[in-house]
């Protein structure tokens, strides 16, 4: 029974093919992010194109009110026809910040993957890497989110909103924050793993 179990293939094992797949995915995600968040806004700036930005406003639909149907704020795409250099810069800056976070996070994941693939999962460097990753998710993501909100807010300054009142909506990116806490927890598990590895090193 035990032999059968040890001989059976672990289908959940993170193999070399998985590592190559994840590495390729990271490269793709980073490339798309650079194109969408940095190159796109820079090209729009150079070509003097208008900027489209989401805008949330309360709506009143009497027909729905009378029918007793509930609805919430509506999201519009606002066209900022002639954005200023400052507005372009704010948008590009926000994109650069997101891309920087993504790149640093990807490099950390790639190094973790390489270390785990080499059989050194519990080396001390991985604890540091995981803590950096947790920090990026816990602190970096909300900061970039707030910077993005300010950049979008700056765009609204000169936009014609058709008399619609803007709705203030401040929300934190909870998913990355929770993910960051989980990564911090895993980092703590790696601290114990690294201590065990230190103990076992030199065991004959």
């Amino acid at each position, binding site marked *: 029974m035990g032999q059968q179990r040890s001989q059976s293939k672990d289908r959940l094992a993170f193999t070399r093919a998985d590592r190559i797949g994840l590495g390729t995915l990271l490269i793709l995600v980073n490339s798309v992010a650079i194109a969408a968040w940095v190159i796109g806004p820079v090209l729009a700036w150079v070509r003097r194109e208008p900027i489209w930005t989401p805008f949330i406003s309360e709506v009143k639909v009497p027909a729905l009110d009378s029918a007793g149907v509930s609805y919430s704020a509506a999201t519009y795409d606002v066209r900022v026809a002639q954005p200023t250099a400052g507005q372009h810069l704010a948008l590009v800056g926000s994109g650069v910040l997101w891309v920087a976070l993504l790149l640093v996070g990807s490099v950390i994941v790639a190094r973790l993957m390489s270390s785990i693939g080499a059989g050194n999962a519990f080396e*001390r460097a991985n604890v540091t890497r995981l803590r950096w990753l947790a920090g990026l998710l816990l602190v970096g993501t909300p900061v970039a989110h707030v910077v993005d909100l300010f950049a979008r807010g700056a765009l609204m300054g000169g936009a014609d909103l058709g008399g619609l009142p803007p709705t203030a909506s401040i929300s934190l990116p909870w998913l990355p924050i929770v993910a960051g806490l989980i990564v911090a927890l895993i980092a703590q598990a790696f601290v114990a793993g690294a*201590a065990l590895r*230190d*103990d076992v*090193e*030199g*065991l*004959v």
Partner: protein
Amino acid sequence: MPVEEPHRIVCRLDELLEARGMTLAALADEVGVTVVNLSVLKNNRAKAVRFSTLTAICDVLECTVGDLLEVRPLRT
């Protein structure tokens, strides 16, 4: 990083092997431990030894644990 605890255990595997005209590789083969690991033990670089490894080495070399390991006296 835990503090490296110095120890005063000295392994006399070298002498035991020489007395029996045996090589480290042959011992490793009989004990079922890699030559690298036995070399670590022989050169006093091991931090810990499994009881199973000690038993196997003593069985093959027909010696006691005291013959294999000794505690170096404290320098005064």
